[in-house]
C-alpha cells in the first residue's frame, strides 16, 4: 500500500454516462491486479477518500471509470490534465485465477465492468479464454472494451443482446466466474456458481483496514473488511441477505 501524489494524465468520456480519468502513478500501475482499488483524496472536498476499482493500468497510468453521482464524483469530473490528487493503493485482495481453469467468464452489471478490463488482461496472461457478459439497463450503457474476446450483452429492456439479467445470459460450461455489479446481481451469481469470485462494494472509512467501517457479513458469521479481506470474495461466503443493497448510485447500473 502506497500513498502518493499523482498527476492527472487524461480524462475520457467512453459513453454519455460514464467517465474515465487516468492518473500517472507507475508505483501503483505496476503491481496492481484485477479487483484491487485505489482510494482517491479530493481537496477541497469531502472528508473521506473515495474508493474506485482500477479500470486499467497501462504505461504507468492508473485509470478509473465512474459516473458523476455525488460530491466526490462531481469533483472528480472537474479534474483536468495536470491536476494533482493523492492516491492510496493498490488496496484489497485481487481476483485469484485457479490453475485448473481453461476459461473464465467476466460477469458485470453497470459500473461493475470497472475491474473487468484488468481481469481480462490477467486472465489472458494466465492463458485463459475469456467470455465477457455485461448487463445494462439499455444499450446506451457502456459496452466493455472486449478486444476480440467472446462477448455477450444483456439488457433489462431487451434493446440489445439478451433480454434480461447478465447472470442468466452467461453460457454454460465456463471455467471460472468473476463478477462485479449491484449486490442483487452478485447474490444471483452466488446462487448459480457458489465458487464464483465476486467484488463487492461497501461504504469505506479508511480503505486500509483500520476503521472496520466496510463490514461484509459472512455466511460463517461475523464480518470481514471489504478493504482488506475483500473486496473480492467467494460468492457463497457472503451473507447476501445481510449485505446492504441500497447503494443508490449503483441503482442505475
Amino acid at each position: 500500500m502506497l500513498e502518493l501524489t499523482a498527476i492527472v494524465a487524461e480524462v475520457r468520456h467512453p459513453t454519455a454516462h460514464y467517465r474515465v480519468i487516468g492518473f500517472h502513478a507507475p508505483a501503483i500501475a505496476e503491481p496492481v491486479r484485477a479487483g484491487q482499488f485505489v482510494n482517491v483524496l479530493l481537496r477541497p472536498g469531502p472528508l473521506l477518500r473515495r474508493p474506485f476499482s482500477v479500470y486499467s493500468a497501462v504505461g504507468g497510468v492508473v485509470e478509473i471509470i465512474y459516473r458523476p453521482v455525488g460530491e466526490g464524483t462531481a469533483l472528480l469530473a472537474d479534474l483536468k490534465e495536470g491536476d494533482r490528487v493523492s492516491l492510496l493503493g493498490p488496496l484489497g485482495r485481487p481476483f485469484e485465477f485457479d490453475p485448473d481453469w481453461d476459461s473464465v467468464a467476466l460477469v458485470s452489471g453497470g459500473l461493475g465492468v470497472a475491474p473487468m478490463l484488468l481481469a481480462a488482461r490477467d486472465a489472458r496472461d494466465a492463458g485463459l479464454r475469456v467470455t465477457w457478459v455485461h448487463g445494462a439497463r439499455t444499450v446506451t450503457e457502456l459496452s466493455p472494451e472486449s478486444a476480440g474476446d467472446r462477448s455477450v450483452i444483456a439488457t433489462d429492456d431487451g434493446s440489445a443482446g439478451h433480454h434480461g439479467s447478465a447472470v442468466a445470459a452467461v453460457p454454460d460450461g465456463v471455467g471460472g466466474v468473476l463478477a462485479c455489479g449491484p449486490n442483487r446481481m452478485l447474490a444471483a451469481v452466488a446462487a448459480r456458481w457458489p465458487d464464483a469470485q465476486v467484488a463487492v462494494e461497501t461504504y469505506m472509512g479508511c480503505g486500509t483496514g483500520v476503521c472496520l467501517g466496510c463490514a461484509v457479513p459472512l455466511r460463517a458469521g461475523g464480518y470481514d473488511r471489504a478493504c482488506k479481506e475483500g473486496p473480492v470474495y467467494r460468492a457463497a461466503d457472503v451473507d447476501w441477505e445481510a449485505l446492504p443493497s441500497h447503494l443508490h448510485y449503483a441503482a442505475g447500473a
Partner: protein
Amino acid sequence: MSVDMAVDVGELNLRGPVVAASGTFGYGTEVPLLERRALGAIVSKGIFLRPRIGNPPPRIVETPSGMLNAIGLQGPGVEALIRDYCPQWAAWDFPVLVNINGESAVEYGELAARLDGVPGVAGFEINVSCPNVEQGGMYFGNDPRAAAEVTAAVRRRTRLPIWVKLTPMVSDIAVIARACESAGADGLSAVNTFVGMSIDLHTYRPRLAFRTGGLSGPAIRPMAVHLAHQAARAVRIPVIGVGGIVSADDALEFLVAGCSAVQVGTATFADPRAIARVHDGIAAHLEARGLSSLAELPRYLPRD
C-alpha cells in the same frame, strides 16, 4: 527541528504530544508504520474480554466535515489480542495503550488484570463513552458514580497508567472528570464521539443499521476543544484532547486550551501521514514563536 517535543503524560513519557486515537489506527499493525518518529503513542482499538462481531452494516456515513460510525466494538477479544498483537507492540519504541471495554465494572477490572504485565501493554484507556454498544459503553460515562466505579475497578487491578475516555454527552463534564480523577485515573481523554443520526431518503429509515452512530471529524472540534478545556480546568491530572484534529493548528488549540497531549483519529483515514504532519506542524509553530520546547507554549487555563 531543534524543538523539544517530549511530554510527560502522568508516568508516561511520550516523545511527542500526538497520539493515535482508538479505533482509527487499528492495532497499529494494519498499515506500514511510516514516520513512526512522530508517534507519541498508539491507543489500540477498543477491546472486550471476549470476541465481539460488532454491528451490521452500514456502519459509517459521511456528514458535513464529519462522519458517523457505529462499528460496535468489533474485536477478537483479549486472548487473541495478547497472542497476535502484544508481541509486536513489545518491539516498538513508543507506548501502546489498550482501549478497554466492558459491560460491568468487574469486566473492566478483569480485562486490566489480564493485560497487566503483558509485554507491549504500556497502559489503559478506559472507554466509558462508546455510543455504539447496547450494554455498557456510554452509560458508564454519563454518570459520575458509574464512571468512578469503573475507574476504581481498573485501578485496583493495575499499576499501569490509566486514562479515562470521556463522553461529550453530558451537561457538565467537570463533574465526571473530577469523579474519575478521584477514583485514580492518571489522565483523561476528552472526548469520544457525539451521538448522531442520518436518515436515508430512499428507505425513509436511518442510514446506519445501528440507527445512531458516533460523530467524529472536524465538525466536532469546537465542541471538543470546549469540553477538553472544561475537563482540564476541573482536574490536576493531564487531559489528552481529541476531536476533529486535522492540522497542527487544530492540535495547538487543544494544547493551548490546557491539554497535555492530543489524539488524532478520523483525519488519519484521509491522510495516513496525519500524525507526522500534525507533529511537525506543532514543532514548526513553536520554532516560529521562538519557543524551544512544547512546555513553553502559553496556555489559557483559568482554574475553576
